[in-house]
């Protein structure tokens, strides 16, 4: 068995989710090859070759792959992937965008967002916003799978010494083009990789009040997240949203502030190790999953908490 892992990267560095995906591949067992598709990705390929457990790095360096357009990258992955037993990618917005296109090109069903590997052909994944866990078996010749990063501990980024091999295949479908992007800037840790996450909900009342959470987060070295209510109300940008339709996090500590705890929000954070809820409504559903609950006005509790930690 040989497994192809699609590297998640921005043409400069390997994203941490790649390490979790390699960890899932290691659980399946067999040789692990990593595909780095992009433009000017020499540094990414070098970094990928150092990932522990990787046997070979395939590099497809071409202008057509610069922005990971699925119309161009998916045919490449499908072509290379035919000889592999599994194709894995992280369940990031890129992975989710590209991999189903690969699966359809190979005429196989895909398994999305696995959280555990039971055997080489059997996997567990959450359905119904995490309210049920399905065990799914695949008899496809090539098993196409996206991996939920929080389900697997990352492998070491250093220690490997894989061979790097260039791939000549160039696919340019010519039906799509990149226009531009607008990335949110943040000095805090990345939400999906942070050890501590502090999230605010509708109870924050406005965007300005998030400064209290930022102050607490900076003291704790934490990332700041939000519920859909806070995003829809325009308090914070949507890439901060935690939940079924936003990001899935599983930090050591998750502090939910002014968040009621709707099913869709819980889907994004209920695998956190310790959950703290601060809410003035003691009936809020968030208290049913919180390890420590504090019924208090957040505008008093947060500044006090910031002082004490």
């Amino acid at each position, binding site marked *: 068995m040989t497994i192809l892992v699609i590297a998640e990267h921005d043409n400069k560095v390997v994203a941490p989710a790649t390490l979790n995906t390699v960890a899932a591949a290691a659980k399946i067992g067999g040789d692990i090859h990593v595909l780095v598709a992009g433009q000017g990705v020499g540094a990414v390929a070098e970094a990928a070759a150092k990932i522990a457990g990787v046997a070979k790095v395939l590099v497809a360096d071409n202008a057509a792959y610069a922005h990971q357009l699925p119309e161009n990258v998916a045919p490449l992955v499908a072509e290379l992937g035919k000889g592999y037993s599994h194709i894995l990618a992280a369940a*990031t917005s890129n992975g989710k965008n590209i991999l189903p296109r690969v699966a359809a090109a190979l005429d196989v069903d895909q398994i999305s967002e696995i959280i555990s590997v039971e055997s080489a052909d059997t996997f567990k994944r959450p359905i119904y916003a995490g*309210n049920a866990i399905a065990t*799914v078996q695949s008899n496809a010749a090539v098993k196409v799978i996206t991996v939920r990063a929080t389900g697997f501990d990352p492998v070491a980024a250093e220690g490997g010494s894989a061979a790097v091999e260039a791939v000549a295949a160039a696919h340019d479908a010519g039906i799509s083009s990149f226009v531009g992007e607008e990335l949110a800037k943040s000095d805090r840790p990345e939400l999906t990789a942070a050890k501590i996450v502090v999230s605010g909900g509708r109870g924050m009342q406005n965007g300005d009040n998030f400064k209290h959470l930022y102050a607490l987060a900076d003291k704790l070295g934490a990332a700041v997240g939000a519920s859909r209510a806070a995003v829809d109300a325009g308090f914070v940008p949507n890439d901060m949203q935690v939940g079924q339709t936003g990001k899935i996090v599983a930090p050591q500590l998750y502090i939910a502030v002014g968040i009621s705890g709707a099913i869709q929000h819980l889907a994004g954070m209920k695998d956190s190790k310790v959950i703290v809820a601060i809410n003035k409504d003691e009936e809020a559903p968030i208290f049913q999953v919180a390890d420590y609950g504090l019924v208090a006005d957040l505008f008093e509790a947060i500044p006090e908490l910031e002082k004490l930690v």
Partner: protein
Amino acid sequence: MKVLVAVKRVVDYNVKVRVKADNSGVDLANVKMSMNPFCEIAVEEAVRLKEKGVATEIVVVSVGPSTAQEQLRTALALGADRAILVENAEDLTSLAVAKLLKAVVDKEQPQLVILGKQAIDSDNNQTGQMLAALSGYGQGTFASKVEISGDSVAVTREVDGGAQTVSLKLPAIVTTDLRLNEPRYASLPNIMKAKKKPLEVLTPDALGVSTASTNKTIKVEAPAARSAGIKVKSVAELVEKLKNEAKVI
């Protein structure tokens, strides 16, 4: 231009589902069903394109049991012109649904196909991308803005770090994210009028599509329950517990 919108009948998003005792699946008997929330957004976007004079006809399609006609009628009440049901009682995989939709796309030749980004039951997030692959069309997934100009569509997408805009040649596939729009409600007169709009029923056999699958669900379990937590009385007590008991700060 003609717009095709795919909708799915799913358990209502407010329902807390229960796993069946025999672990064969989730208990859907006597549970409230609705249109998948992302599909509502897809229908709304198509209706807005028609109101702007961009779309001339909206065809709404669903793959599912005969009861999915309810969701198609809802879409008709919201402004779709006619409906197609590909009737199939069993649960199909995303690939099978994408193949059935591809057959409908071949038949209808729409310029734009709009789907939701994922269904809240299977949480797969696959069908739109698979349909795009099978049709050979460009895909604008997780769309928060859709602008059609001439023979192309500019789609602003929600990505992990923020937003990205891509331009796709028409015909193209778009899948909707939550912030694309705020879906409207169907008015009573429109619900009455929707009953008279055409609804065609097809079968996978009639479309010549095999729905065989390479995946099999072996069992469905409830997730591990979290052990009950405690309520603390003060911020000081909370900090003390986090430091000394949970040891997370």
